[in-house]
Protein backbone atom coordinates (compact mmCIF):
# COMPACT_ATOMS: atom_id res chain seq x y z
CA UNK A 1 0.00 0.00 0.00
CA UNK A 2 2.82 2.31 0.90
CA UNK A 3 4.43 1.64 -2.45
CA UNK A 4 1.21 2.34 -4.32
CA UNK A 5 0.66 5.72 -2.67
CA UNK A 6 4.26 6.91 -2.70
CA UNK A 7 4.61 5.61 -6.24
CA UNK A 8 1.64 7.70 -7.29
CA UNK A 9 3.21 10.78 -5.71
CA UNK A 10 6.53 10.02 -7.35
CA UNK A 11 4.89 9.52 -10.74
CA UNK A 12 3.24 12.91 -10.38
CA UNK A 13 6.63 14.43 -9.54
CA UNK A 14 8.06 12.96 -12.73
CA UNK A 15 5.10 14.16 -14.74
CA UNK A 16 5.30 17.71 -13.41
CA UNK A 17 9.01 17.87 -14.09
CA UNK A 18 8.71 16.46 -17.58
CA UNK A 19 5.60 18.31 -18.76
CA UNK A 20 7.39 21.61 -19.34
CA UNK A 21 10.18 20.00 -21.30
CA UNK A 22 7.73 17.95 -23.35
CA UNK A 23 5.65 21.04 -24.14
CA UNK A 24 8.63 23.04 -25.36
CA UNK A 25 10.02 20.18 -27.39
CA UNK A 26 6.65 19.31 -28.87
CA UNK A 27 5.96 22.82 -30.10
CA UNK A 28 9.35 24.21 -31.00
CA UNK A 29 11.51 21.09 -31.47
CA UNK A 30 14.08 22.70 -29.18
CA UNK A 31 15.48 20.44 -26.48
CA UNK A 32 15.41 22.93 -23.64
CA UNK A 33 18.43 21.97 -21.58
CA UNK A 34 17.80 25.04 -19.43
CA UNK A 35 14.72 23.32 -17.98
CA UNK A 36 16.46 22.07 -14.86
CA UNK A 37 18.20 25.40 -14.42
CA UNK A 38 14.89 27.26 -14.42
CA UNK A 39 13.50 24.78 -11.92
CA UNK A 40 16.30 25.50 -9.48
CA UNK A 41 16.30 29.22 -10.18
CA UNK A 42 12.60 29.46 -9.31
CA UNK A 43 13.27 27.66 -6.07
CA UNK A 44 16.00 30.12 -5.13
CA UNK A 45 13.93 33.10 -6.25
CA UNK A 46 11.03 32.01 -4.10
CA UNK A 47 13.44 31.54 -1.21
CA UNK A 48 14.93 34.99 -1.69
CA UNK A 49 11.53 36.67 -1.98
CA UNK A 50 10.44 34.88 1.13
CA UNK A 51 13.49 35.39 3.32
CA UNK A 52 15.27 38.47 1.99
CA UNK A 53 12.31 40.61 0.96
CA UNK A 54 9.98 39.12 3.60
CA UNK A 55 7.09 38.78 1.16
CA UNK A 56 4.13 36.56 2.04
CA UNK A 57 4.52 33.02 0.71
CA UNK A 58 1.72 33.18 -1.86
CA UNK A 59 3.03 36.42 -3.32
CA UNK A 60 6.58 35.05 -3.46
CA UNK A 61 5.35 32.02 -5.38
CA UNK A 62 3.35 34.11 -7.80
CA UNK A 63 6.24 36.49 -8.42
CA UNK A 64 8.77 33.75 -9.02
CA UNK A 65 6.43 32.00 -11.44
CA UNK A 66 6.04 35.26 -13.36
CA UNK A 67 9.79 35.71 -13.45
CA UNK A 68 10.25 32.18 -14.76
CA UNK A 69 7.76 32.72 -17.58
CA UNK A 70 9.47 35.98 -18.44
CA UNK A 71 12.81 34.22 -18.41
CA UNK A 72 11.50 31.67 -20.89
CA UNK A 73 10.42 34.48 -23.21
CA UNK A 74 13.79 36.20 -22.90
CA UNK A 75 15.72 33.00 -23.57
CA UNK A 76 13.72 32.43 -26.71
CA UNK A 77 13.73 36.01 -27.93
CA UNK A 78 17.40 36.78 -27.41
CA UNK A 79 19.10 33.43 -27.77
CA UNK A 80 17.15 30.68 -29.46
CA UNK A 81 15.30 32.78 -32.03
CA UNK A 82 18.50 33.72 -33.77
CA UNK A 83 19.49 30.09 -34.03
CA UNK A 84 16.26 28.50 -35.34
CA UNK A 85 16.87 25.88 -37.97
CA UNK A 86 20.41 25.12 -36.83
CA UNK A 87 19.93 22.09 -34.56
CA UNK A 88 23.57 21.93 -33.45
CA UNK A 89 23.62 25.57 -32.38
CA UNK A 90 20.20 25.29 -30.70
CA UNK A 91 21.37 22.41 -28.54
CA UNK A 92 24.69 24.05 -27.66
CA UNK A 93 23.06 27.39 -26.88
CA UNK A 94 20.37 25.99 -24.58
CA UNK A 95 23.02 23.90 -22.83
CA UNK A 96 25.14 27.03 -22.35
CA UNK A 97 22.17 28.97 -20.96
CA UNK A 98 21.57 26.17 -18.52
CA UNK A 99 25.17 26.24 -17.31
CA UNK A 100 25.18 30.03 -17.00
CA UNK A 101 22.16 29.89 -14.71
CA UNK A 102 23.15 26.84 -12.68
CA UNK A 103 26.80 27.63 -12.15
CA UNK A 104 25.99 31.32 -11.82
CA UNK A 105 23.91 30.48 -8.74
CA UNK A 106 27.10 29.20 -7.14
CA UNK A 107 29.06 32.40 -7.75
CA UNK A 108 30.36 34.02 -4.65
CA UNK A 109 31.60 37.42 -3.72
CA UNK A 110 30.29 39.46 -6.63
CA UNK A 111 28.26 42.49 -5.59
CA UNK A 112 27.71 41.03 -2.15
CA UNK A 113 26.08 37.94 -3.58
CA UNK A 114 26.77 35.04 -1.26
CA UNK A 115 26.11 32.19 -3.65
CA UNK A 116 23.63 29.44 -2.97
CA UNK A 117 25.96 26.85 -1.50
CA UNK A 118 25.26 24.69 1.49
CA UNK A 119 22.37 22.83 3.04
CA UNK A 120 20.44 25.72 4.60
CA UNK A 121 18.08 26.53 1.77
CA UNK A 122 14.65 24.99 1.82
CA UNK A 123 11.13 26.16 1.10
CA UNK A 124 8.53 25.68 3.81
CA UNK A 125 5.72 23.23 3.05
CA UNK A 126 2.29 24.74 2.42
CA UNK A 127 0.82 22.94 5.39
CA UNK A 128 3.03 21.26 7.93
CA UNK A 129 0.99 18.26 8.97
CA UNK A 130 0.46 14.61 8.24
CA UNK A 131 -2.58 12.53 7.48
CA UNK A 132 -3.16 8.82 7.57
CA UNK A 133 -4.53 7.31 4.39
CA UNK A 134 -5.21 3.60 4.19
CA UNK A 135 -2.75 2.94 6.95
CA UNK A 136 0.04 5.05 5.47
CA UNK A 137 1.26 8.33 6.89
CA UNK A 138 1.44 10.98 4.22
CA UNK A 139 2.39 14.62 4.67
CA UNK A 140 0.15 17.28 3.21
CA UNK A 141 2.77 18.49 0.77
CA UNK A 142 2.69 15.14 -1.05
CA UNK A 143 -1.09 15.37 -1.18
CA UNK A 144 -0.76 18.83 -2.62
CA UNK A 145 1.59 17.48 -5.29
CA UNK A 146 -0.97 14.84 -6.22
CA UNK A 147 -3.92 17.23 -6.21
CA UNK A 148 -2.40 20.35 -7.70
CA UNK A 149 -0.36 18.28 -10.14
CA UNK A 150 -3.52 16.69 -11.52
CA UNK A 151 -5.07 20.15 -11.71
CA UNK A 152 -2.09 21.45 -13.69
CA UNK A 153 -2.29 18.55 -16.10
CA UNK A 154 -6.02 19.06 -16.51
CA UNK A 155 -5.38 22.74 -17.16
CA UNK A 156 -2.81 21.91 -19.83
CA UNK A 157 -5.27 19.54 -21.44
CA UNK A 158 -8.10 22.09 -21.42
CA UNK A 159 -5.74 24.83 -22.63
CA UNK A 160 -4.39 22.88 -25.57
CA UNK A 161 -7.77 21.50 -26.61
CA UNK A 162 -10.21 24.32 -26.05
CA UNK A 163 -8.44 27.65 -26.16
CA UNK A 164 -7.39 29.35 -29.34
CA UNK A 165 -3.79 29.89 -28.25
CA UNK A 166 -3.51 26.26 -27.19
CA UNK A 167 -4.93 25.05 -30.49
CA UNK A 168 -2.33 27.16 -32.28
CA UNK A 169 0.41 25.50 -30.29
CA UNK A 170 -0.89 22.07 -31.21
CA UNK A 171 -1.14 23.06 -34.85
CA UNK A 172 2.51 24.14 -34.87
CA UNK A 173 3.47 20.92 -33.13
CA UNK A 174 1.68 18.77 -35.67
CA UNK A 175 2.77 20.45 -38.90
CA UNK A 176 4.72 23.65 -38.69
CA UNK A 177 4.55 24.62 -42.35
CA UNK A 178 0.85 24.01 -42.72
CA UNK A 179 0.23 25.99 -39.54
CA UNK A 180 2.31 28.88 -40.81
CA UNK A 181 0.31 28.90 -44.05
CA UNK A 182 -2.81 29.35 -41.99
CA UNK A 183 -1.32 32.45 -40.43
CA UNK A 184 0.02 31.12 -37.17
CA UNK A 185 3.19 32.86 -36.13
CA UNK A 186 5.70 30.11 -35.48
CA UNK A 187 8.07 32.31 -33.49
CA UNK A 188 5.30 33.61 -31.26
CA UNK A 189 4.05 30.08 -30.66
CA UNK A 190 7.54 28.90 -29.76
CA UNK A 191 8.00 31.86 -27.45
CA UNK A 192 4.73 31.06 -25.75
CA UNK A 193 5.71 27.41 -25.41
CA UNK A 194 8.94 28.43 -23.71
CA UNK A 195 7.10 30.77 -21.37
CA UNK A 196 4.61 28.04 -20.49
CA UNK A 197 7.30 25.41 -20.23
CA UNK A 198 9.34 27.57 -17.87
CA UNK A 199 6.28 28.38 -15.80
CA UNK A 200 5.59 24.63 -15.59
CA UNK A 201 9.15 24.03 -14.45
CA UNK A 202 8.55 26.74 -11.85
CA UNK A 203 5.29 25.16 -10.73
CA UNK A 204 7.03 21.85 -10.36
CA UNK A 205 9.76 23.50 -8.31
CA UNK A 206 7.31 25.24 -6.01
CA UNK A 207 5.36 22.05 -5.42
CA UNK A 208 8.24 19.60 -5.11
CA UNK A 209 11.02 21.57 -3.42
CA UNK A 210 9.37 21.82 0.04
CA UNK A 211 9.92 18.05 0.31
CA UNK A 212 13.66 18.48 0.63
CA UNK A 213 16.59 20.82 0.50
CA UNK A 214 17.37 23.19 -2.30
CA UNK A 215 20.69 22.69 -4.05
CA UNK A 216 22.18 23.61 -7.38
CA UNK A 217 22.93 19.97 -8.25
CA UNK A 218 19.19 19.32 -8.36
CA UNK A 219 19.11 21.20 -11.65
CA UNK A 220 20.98 18.36 -13.31
CA UNK A 221 18.94 15.65 -11.59
CA UNK A 222 15.66 17.28 -12.54
CA UNK A 223 16.80 17.63 -16.12
CA UNK A 224 17.78 13.96 -16.19
CA UNK A 225 14.33 12.98 -14.89
CA UNK A 226 12.60 15.13 -17.48
CA UNK A 227 14.75 13.76 -20.29
CA UNK A 228 14.24 10.18 -19.12
CA UNK A 229 10.46 10.56 -19.06
CA UNK A 230 10.43 12.17 -22.50
CA UNK A 231 12.65 9.56 -24.11
CA UNK A 232 10.86 6.59 -22.56
CA UNK A 233 7.48 8.00 -23.47
CA UNK A 234 8.52 9.14 -26.91
CA UNK A 235 9.66 12.70 -27.51
CA UNK A 236 6.74 15.00 -28.20
CA UNK A 237 3.96 12.64 -27.15
CA UNK A 238 1.64 13.56 -24.28
CA UNK A 239 0.16 10.13 -23.67
CA UNK A 240 3.68 8.75 -23.69
CA UNK A 241 4.78 11.29 -21.12
CA UNK A 242 2.02 10.26 -18.73
CA UNK A 243 2.62 6.53 -19.14
CA UNK A 244 6.37 6.93 -18.88
CA UNK A 245 6.08 8.93 -15.66
CA UNK A 246 3.95 6.18 -14.18
CA UNK A 247 6.44 3.52 -15.26
CA UNK A 248 9.48 5.44 -14.04
CA UNK A 249 7.79 6.74 -10.89
CA UNK A 250 6.89 3.28 -9.69
CA UNK A 251 10.14 1.63 -10.76
CA UNK A 252 12.18 4.29 -8.95
CA UNK A 253 10.11 3.87 -5.79
CA UNK A 254 10.50 0.09 -6.00
CA UNK A 255 14.25 0.30 -6.48
CA UNK A 256 14.57 2.79 -3.62
CA UNK A 257 12.61 0.41 -1.41
CA UNK A 258 14.71 -2.59 -2.41
CA UNK A 259 18.23 -1.20 -2.86
CA UNK A 260 18.33 2.41 -1.64
CA UNK A 261 17.95 5.86 -3.12
CA UNK A 262 21.37 6.14 -4.77
CA UNK A 263 20.29 3.73 -7.50
CA UNK A 264 17.69 6.10 -8.98
CA UNK A 265 19.82 7.26 -11.89
CA UNK A 266 20.84 3.70 -12.66
CA UNK A 267 17.18 2.77 -12.99
CA UNK A 268 16.50 5.81 -15.19
CA UNK A 269 19.40 5.23 -17.57
CA UNK A 270 18.78 1.51 -17.63
CA UNK A 271 15.14 2.02 -18.63
CA UNK A 272 16.17 4.46 -21.34
CA UNK A 273 18.67 2.06 -22.83
CA UNK A 274 16.23 -0.84 -22.79
CA UNK A 275 13.58 1.34 -24.44
CA UNK A 276 15.99 2.61 -27.08
CA UNK A 277 17.05 -0.92 -27.90
CA UNK A 278 13.54 -2.40 -28.04
CA UNK A 279 11.38 0.45 -29.24
CA UNK A 280 13.58 3.38 -30.23
CA UNK A 281 10.89 5.98 -30.63
CA UNK A 282 9.51 5.44 -27.14
CA UNK A 283 6.42 3.78 -25.74
CA UNK A 284 3.94 6.03 -27.51
CA UNK A 285 6.12 7.69 -30.13
CA UNK A 286 4.14 6.48 -33.13
CA UNK A 287 3.39 9.87 -34.58
CA UNK A 288 7.00 10.93 -34.86
CA UNK A 289 8.40 7.50 -35.58
CA UNK A 290 9.25 8.17 -39.20
CA UNK A 291 10.79 11.49 -38.38
CA UNK A 292 13.19 10.19 -35.79
CA UNK A 293 14.19 6.77 -36.99
CA UNK A 294 16.64 6.54 -39.78
Amino acid at each position, binding site marked *: MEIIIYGAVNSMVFMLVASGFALVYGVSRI*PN*FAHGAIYVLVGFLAWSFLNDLKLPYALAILLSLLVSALLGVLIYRF*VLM*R*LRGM*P*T*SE*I*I*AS*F*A*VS*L*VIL*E*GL*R*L*QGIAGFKGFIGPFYSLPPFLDAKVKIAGVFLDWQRLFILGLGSLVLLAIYLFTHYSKAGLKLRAIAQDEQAAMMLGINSDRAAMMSLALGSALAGTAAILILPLGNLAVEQG*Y*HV*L*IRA*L*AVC*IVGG*LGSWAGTIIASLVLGYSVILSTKLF*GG*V*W*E*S*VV*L*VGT*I*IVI*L*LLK*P*SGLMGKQKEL*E*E*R*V
Partner: protein
Amino acid sequence: MTASEQRKKRIERSITVRSRSIYALSSWREMTFLLLPRAALVASLCILPLVLGMYWQRVFCAAAIYAMLALAFDFLAQFVGLVCLGLSMFIGLGGYISGGLNHYWGWPIWLSIPAASLAGAVLGTLALVPCLRLRGVYFAIISFMLPLFLVSLIIATSILGSTEGISSLDNLPNIWIEQYLIIGALLLVLFGFRRLVTEDFGVILQGIKDNDQAVKASGIDITAYRIKAVFLAACIGSFCGAYLSHLYGWLGLSMFAMDFSILPIAATVMGGMGTLAGPVIGAFILTPLSEGLRGFGQLRVVLYSLLLLGFILYKPEGILNYLERKYFQFERWEKV
Protein backbone atom coordinates in the same frame (compact mmCIF):
# COMPACT_ATOMS: atom_id res chain seq x y z
CA MET B 1 27.34 59.50 -50.81
CA THR B 2 26.08 57.52 -47.84
CA ALA B 3 27.40 54.25 -46.62
CA SER B 4 24.32 52.40 -47.72
CA GLU B 5 25.21 52.94 -51.34
CA GLN B 6 28.45 51.10 -50.97
CA ARG B 7 29.05 47.44 -50.52
CA LYS B 8 32.03 45.44 -49.49
CA LYS B 9 33.48 43.30 -52.20
CA ARG B 10 35.66 40.33 -51.40
CA ILE B 11 38.06 39.10 -54.00
CA GLU B 12 40.48 36.18 -53.82
CA ARG B 13 44.11 37.15 -53.76
CA SER B 14 45.84 36.09 -56.93
CA ILE B 15 48.21 33.90 -54.99
CA THR B 16 45.22 32.05 -53.49
CA VAL B 17 44.05 31.12 -56.92
CA ARG B 18 47.51 30.25 -58.16
CA SER B 19 48.23 27.99 -55.23
CA ARG B 20 44.97 26.13 -55.48
CA SER B 21 45.88 23.42 -57.96
CA ILE B 22 48.85 21.19 -58.55
CA TYR B 23 50.79 24.11 -60.10
CA ALA B 24 51.44 25.41 -56.62
CA LEU B 25 54.29 22.93 -56.60
CA SER B 26 56.12 24.78 -59.34
CA SER B 27 56.98 27.84 -57.27
CA TRP B 28 58.46 28.32 -53.84
CA ARG B 29 56.30 31.35 -53.23
CA GLU B 30 53.05 29.52 -53.64
CA MET B 31 54.27 26.59 -51.60
CA THR B 32 55.32 28.92 -48.79
CA PHE B 33 51.94 30.62 -48.96
CA LEU B 34 50.23 27.29 -48.40
CA LEU B 35 52.65 25.92 -45.84
CA LEU B 36 53.13 29.02 -43.72
CA PRO B 37 49.98 28.81 -41.57
CA ARG B 38 50.42 25.07 -41.00
CA ALA B 39 54.09 25.41 -40.21
CA ALA B 40 53.40 28.32 -37.89
CA LEU B 41 50.94 26.24 -35.87
CA VAL B 42 53.21 23.20 -35.66
CA ALA B 43 56.28 25.28 -34.84
CA SER B 44 54.59 27.31 -32.15
CA LEU B 45 53.24 24.13 -30.54
CA CYS B 46 56.70 22.58 -30.56
CA ILE B 47 58.55 25.67 -29.30
CA LEU B 48 56.13 26.80 -26.60
CA PRO B 49 57.16 24.13 -24.04
CA LEU B 50 60.76 25.32 -24.30
CA VAL B 51 60.01 28.92 -23.38
CA LEU B 52 57.30 28.42 -20.75
CA GLY B 53 57.93 28.30 -17.02
CA MET B 54 57.22 25.32 -14.82
CA TYR B 55 53.66 26.34 -13.97
CA TRP B 56 52.62 27.27 -17.47
CA GLN B 57 54.00 24.03 -18.84
CA ARG B 58 51.29 22.23 -16.88
CA VAL B 59 48.71 24.65 -18.24
CA PHE B 60 50.04 23.94 -21.69
CA CYS B 61 49.41 20.22 -21.21
CA ALA B 62 45.86 20.93 -20.06
CA ALA B 63 45.31 23.19 -23.06
CA ALA B 64 46.47 20.42 -25.38
CA ILE B 65 44.02 18.01 -23.73
CA TYR B 66 41.17 20.47 -24.20
CA ALA B 67 42.28 21.01 -27.79
CA MET B 68 42.05 17.30 -28.50
CA LEU B 69 38.61 17.11 -26.89
CA ALA B 70 37.52 20.09 -28.96
CA LEU B 71 38.73 18.31 -32.09
CA ALA B 72 36.69 15.27 -31.16
CA PHE B 73 33.64 17.46 -30.55
CA ASP B 74 34.08 19.37 -33.80
CA PHE B 75 34.50 16.14 -35.75
CA LEU B 76 31.34 14.63 -34.28
CA ALA B 77 29.24 17.78 -34.54
CA GLN B 78 30.18 19.12 -37.93
CA PHE B 79 31.21 16.03 -39.87
CA VAL B 80 28.93 13.36 -38.42
CA GLY B 81 26.05 15.46 -37.13
CA LEU B 82 26.16 14.21 -33.53
CA VAL B 83 26.30 16.85 -30.81
CA CYS B 84 28.13 15.41 -27.83
CA LEU B 85 27.40 17.24 -24.58
CA GLY B 86 29.19 14.73 -22.39
CA LEU B 87 32.83 14.71 -23.44
CA SER B 88 33.72 14.35 -19.76
CA MET B 89 32.40 10.80 -19.95
CA PHE B 90 35.31 9.82 -22.21
CA ILE B 91 37.79 11.61 -19.94
CA GLY B 92 36.38 9.81 -16.93
CA LEU B 93 36.31 6.39 -18.59
CA GLY B 94 39.89 6.69 -19.84
CA GLY B 95 41.16 8.11 -16.59
CA TYR B 96 39.47 5.56 -14.38
CA ILE B 97 40.45 2.58 -16.50
CA SER B 98 44.06 3.65 -16.82
CA GLY B 99 44.33 4.66 -13.19
CA GLY B 100 42.60 1.47 -12.06
CA LEU B 101 44.92 -0.75 -14.12
CA ASN B 102 47.90 1.15 -12.78
CA HIS B 103 46.77 1.22 -9.17
CA TYR B 104 45.24 -2.21 -8.65
CA TRP B 105 47.17 -4.38 -11.09
CA GLY B 106 50.39 -2.41 -11.31
CA TRP B 107 50.41 -2.06 -15.10
CA PRO B 108 53.16 0.29 -16.31
CA ILE B 109 52.14 3.57 -17.90
CA TRP B 110 53.14 2.71 -21.44
CA LEU B 111 50.74 -0.24 -21.25
CA SER B 112 47.90 1.27 -19.23
CA ILE B 113 47.43 4.40 -21.36
CA PRO B 114 46.94 2.60 -24.68
CA ALA B 115 44.85 -0.09 -23.01
CA ALA B 116 42.66 2.55 -21.38
CA SER B 117 42.27 4.46 -24.65
CA LEU B 118 40.97 1.34 -26.36
CA ALA B 119 38.87 0.02 -23.49
CA GLY B 120 37.40 3.46 -22.80
CA ALA B 121 36.57 3.88 -26.46
CA VAL B 122 34.84 0.50 -26.57
CA LEU B 123 32.83 1.16 -23.41
CA GLY B 124 31.94 4.72 -24.44
CA THR B 125 30.81 3.59 -27.86
CA LEU B 126 28.80 0.71 -26.44
CA ALA B 127 27.01 3.11 -24.11
CA LEU B 128 26.12 5.39 -26.99
CA VAL B 129 25.18 2.73 -29.56
CA PRO B 130 21.46 2.55 -28.61
CA CYS B 131 20.86 6.15 -29.67
CA LEU B 132 22.93 6.03 -32.87
CA ARG B 133 20.03 4.42 -34.70
CA LEU B 134 17.97 7.54 -34.11
CA ARG B 135 18.06 10.92 -35.70
CA GLY B 136 17.76 14.22 -33.90
CA VAL B 137 18.49 15.16 -30.35
CA TYR B 138 18.77 11.69 -28.83
CA PHE B 139 22.54 11.60 -29.03
CA ALA B 140 22.88 14.98 -27.33
CA ILE B 141 20.49 13.95 -24.54
CA ILE B 142 22.04 10.56 -23.85
CA SER B 143 25.59 11.87 -23.99
CA PHE B 144 24.59 14.61 -21.54
CA MET B 145 23.16 12.06 -19.11
CA LEU B 146 25.90 9.45 -19.17
CA PRO B 147 28.65 11.29 -17.24
CA LEU B 148 26.20 12.22 -14.49
CA PHE B 149 25.03 8.61 -14.48
CA LEU B 150 28.57 7.27 -14.18
CA VAL B 151 29.26 9.59 -11.24
CA SER B 152 26.25 8.31 -9.35
CA LEU B 153 27.14 4.74 -10.29
CA ILE B 154 30.59 5.16 -8.77
CA ILE B 155 29.12 6.72 -5.65
CA ALA B 156 26.38 4.07 -5.39
CA THR B 157 28.71 1.09 -5.70
CA SER B 158 31.57 2.84 -3.86
CA ILE B 159 34.15 1.20 -6.11
CA LEU B 160 37.31 2.82 -7.50
CA GLY B 161 37.87 5.10 -4.56
CA SER B 162 34.25 6.34 -4.53
CA THR B 163 34.12 10.05 -3.69
CA GLU B 164 37.73 10.19 -2.52
CA GLY B 165 39.36 9.17 -5.76
CA ILE B 166 42.65 7.33 -6.04
CA SER B 167 45.94 9.12 -5.54
CA SER B 168 49.60 8.18 -5.98
CA LEU B 169 49.34 6.81 -9.49
CA ASP B 170 52.53 6.53 -11.50
CA ASN B 171 53.56 9.80 -13.08
CA LEU B 172 54.98 10.24 -16.52
CA PRO B 173 58.82 10.17 -16.40
CA ASN B 174 59.47 13.89 -16.81
CA ILE B 175 57.90 17.14 -17.94
CA TRP B 176 59.38 16.96 -21.45
CA ILE B 177 57.91 13.57 -22.20
CA GLU B 178 54.60 14.78 -20.75
CA GLN B 179 54.51 17.76 -23.07
CA TYR B 180 55.80 16.24 -26.26
CA LEU B 181 53.63 13.16 -25.88
CA ILE B 182 50.47 15.26 -25.84
CA ILE B 183 51.72 17.59 -28.60
CA GLY B 184 52.50 14.60 -30.79
CA ALA B 185 49.05 13.15 -30.13
CA LEU B 186 47.40 16.51 -30.78
CA LEU B 187 49.15 17.04 -34.12
CA LEU B 188 48.44 13.46 -35.12
CA VAL B 189 44.74 13.89 -34.36
CA LEU B 190 44.54 17.31 -36.00
CA PHE B 191 46.15 16.37 -39.29
CA GLY B 192 44.65 12.89 -39.17
CA PHE B 193 41.14 14.33 -38.94
CA ARG B 194 41.84 16.90 -41.64
CA ARG B 195 42.86 14.08 -43.89
CA LEU B 196 40.07 11.76 -42.81
CA VAL B 197 37.23 14.13 -43.61
CA THR B 198 38.33 14.38 -47.23
CA GLU B 199 38.70 10.61 -47.64
CA ASP B 200 35.83 8.36 -48.70
CA PHE B 201 35.06 7.66 -45.05
CA GLY B 202 34.67 11.35 -44.27
CA VAL B 203 32.60 12.00 -47.38
CA ILE B 204 30.16 9.27 -46.37
CA LEU B 205 29.92 10.73 -42.86
CA GLN B 206 29.17 14.16 -44.33
CA GLY B 207 26.53 12.54 -46.49
CA ILE B 208 24.96 10.95 -43.41
CA LYS B 209 24.88 14.33 -41.74
CA ASP B 210 23.30 16.08 -44.71
CA ASN B 211 20.84 13.46 -45.90
CA ASP B 212 20.81 10.11 -44.15
CA GLN B 213 18.00 8.66 -46.24
CA ALA B 214 19.97 9.17 -49.45
CA VAL B 215 23.05 7.51 -48.00
CA LYS B 216 20.94 4.62 -46.78
CA ALA B 217 19.36 4.29 -50.19
CA SER B 218 22.85 3.81 -51.62
CA GLY B 219 23.15 0.63 -49.61
CA ILE B 220 25.46 1.99 -46.92
CA ASP B 221 24.90 0.99 -43.32
CA ILE B 222 24.79 4.39 -41.68
CA THR B 223 24.67 3.08 -38.12
CA ALA B 224 27.95 1.24 -38.68
CA TYR B 225 29.57 4.41 -39.96
CA ARG B 226 28.31 6.42 -37.03
CA ILE B 227 29.60 3.79 -34.62
CA LYS B 228 33.05 4.01 -36.22
CA ALA B 229 33.04 7.80 -35.97
CA VAL B 230 31.95 7.75 -32.33
CA PHE B 231 34.62 5.15 -31.62
CA LEU B 232 37.30 7.46 -33.01
CA ALA B 233 36.13 10.39 -30.91
CA ALA B 234 35.78 8.21 -27.82
CA CYS B 235 39.28 6.85 -28.34
CA ILE B 236 40.71 10.37 -28.39
CA GLY B 237 38.74 11.35 -25.32
CA SER B 238 39.78 8.25 -23.40
CA PHE B 239 43.42 8.81 -24.31
CA CYS B 240 43.14 12.33 -22.91
CA GLY B 241 41.60 10.97 -19.72
CA ALA B 242 44.26 8.30 -19.31
CA TYR B 243 46.98 10.85 -19.91
CA LEU B 244 45.38 13.28 -17.49
CA SER B 245 45.19 10.75 -14.67
CA HIS B 246 48.92 10.06 -15.01
CA LEU B 247 49.77 13.73 -15.50
CA TYR B 248 48.38 14.58 -12.07
CA GLY B 249 48.99 11.14 -10.59
CA TRP B 250 45.46 11.30 -9.26
CA LEU B 251 41.94 10.48 -10.34
CA GLY B 252 38.58 11.35 -8.90
CA LEU B 253 35.01 12.27 -9.66
CA SER B 254 36.06 15.70 -10.90
CA MET B 255 37.13 13.95 -14.11
CA PHE B 256 33.43 13.86 -14.93
CA ALA B 257 33.09 17.59 -14.21
CA MET B 258 31.28 19.99 -16.50
CA ASP B 259 34.55 21.76 -17.37
CA PHE B 260 35.58 18.93 -19.64
CA SER B 261 32.25 19.07 -21.44
CA ILE B 262 31.77 22.78 -21.86
CA LEU B 263 35.29 24.13 -22.48
CA PRO B 264 35.87 22.09 -25.65
CA ILE B 265 32.47 23.20 -26.95
CA ALA B 266 33.27 26.83 -26.19
CA ALA B 267 36.68 26.43 -27.82
CA THR B 268 35.09 24.93 -30.91
CA VAL B 269 32.51 27.65 -31.29
CA MET B 270 35.09 30.33 -30.63
CA GLY B 271 37.67 28.93 -33.02
CA GLY B 272 35.18 28.22 -35.78
CA MET B 273 32.93 25.19 -36.11
CA GLY B 274 33.88 22.76 -38.82
CA THR B 275 37.42 24.01 -39.34
CA LEU B 276 39.23 21.47 -37.11
CA ALA B 277 42.21 23.80 -36.66
CA GLY B 278 39.94 26.46 -35.16
CA PRO B 279 39.03 24.43 -32.06
CA VAL B 280 42.74 23.95 -31.33
CA ILE B 281 43.31 27.71 -31.47
CA GLY B 282 40.21 28.27 -29.33
CA ALA B 283 41.41 25.81 -26.71
CA PHE B 284 44.83 27.46 -26.53
CA ILE B 285 43.15 30.84 -25.98
CA LEU B 286 40.53 29.70 -23.46
CA THR B 287 42.61 27.47 -21.20
CA PRO B 288 45.21 30.10 -20.17
CA LEU B 289 42.34 32.56 -19.75
CA SER B 290 40.56 30.19 -17.39
CA GLU B 291 43.83 29.53 -15.58
CA GLY B 292 44.06 33.22 -14.78
CA LEU B 293 40.58 32.99 -13.22
CA ARG B 294 41.34 29.94 -11.11
CA GLY B 295 40.70 31.89 -7.92
CA PHE B 296 37.10 32.55 -8.86
CA GLY B 297 35.98 28.92 -8.79
CA GLN B 298 32.73 28.38 -10.62
CA LEU B 299 33.05 31.68 -12.46
CA ARG B 300 35.05 29.81 -15.07
CA VAL B 301 32.21 27.62 -16.25
CA VAL B 302 29.93 30.66 -16.37
CA LEU B 303 32.57 32.53 -18.35
CA TYR B 304 32.97 29.76 -20.93
CA SER B 305 29.23 29.54 -21.32
CA LEU B 306 28.88 33.29 -21.76
CA LEU B 307 31.72 33.38 -24.30
CA LEU B 308 30.11 30.47 -26.08
CA LEU B 309 26.75 32.23 -26.22
CA GLY B 310 28.36 35.47 -27.40
CA PHE B 311 30.24 33.79 -30.21
CA ILE B 312 27.36 31.58 -31.32
CA LEU B 313 24.99 34.55 -31.45
CA TYR B 314 27.15 37.36 -32.76
CA LYS B 315 30.18 35.79 -34.43
CA PRO B 316 29.12 32.30 -35.47
CA GLU B 317 31.90 31.97 -38.04
CA GLY B 318 34.58 31.91 -35.34
CA ILE B 319 38.15 33.11 -35.24
CA LEU B 320 39.70 30.82 -37.81
CA ASN B 321 37.20 31.51 -40.57
CA TYR B 322 37.79 35.21 -40.03
CA LEU B 323 41.55 34.82 -40.23
CA GLU B 324 41.26 32.58 -43.26
CA ARG B 325 39.22 35.20 -45.05
CA LYS B 326 41.82 37.85 -44.35
CA TYR B 327 44.58 35.54 -45.49
CA PHE B 328 43.07 34.31 -48.72
CA GLN B 329 41.03 37.32 -49.81
CA PHE B 330 41.15 41.06 -49.87
CA GLU B 331 38.25 43.43 -49.48
CA ARG B 332 37.36 46.79 -50.90
CA TRP B 333 34.39 49.09 -50.82
CA GLU B 334 32.56 49.45 -54.04
CA LYS B 335 29.85 51.72 -55.37
CA VAL B 336 26.57 50.00 -55.99
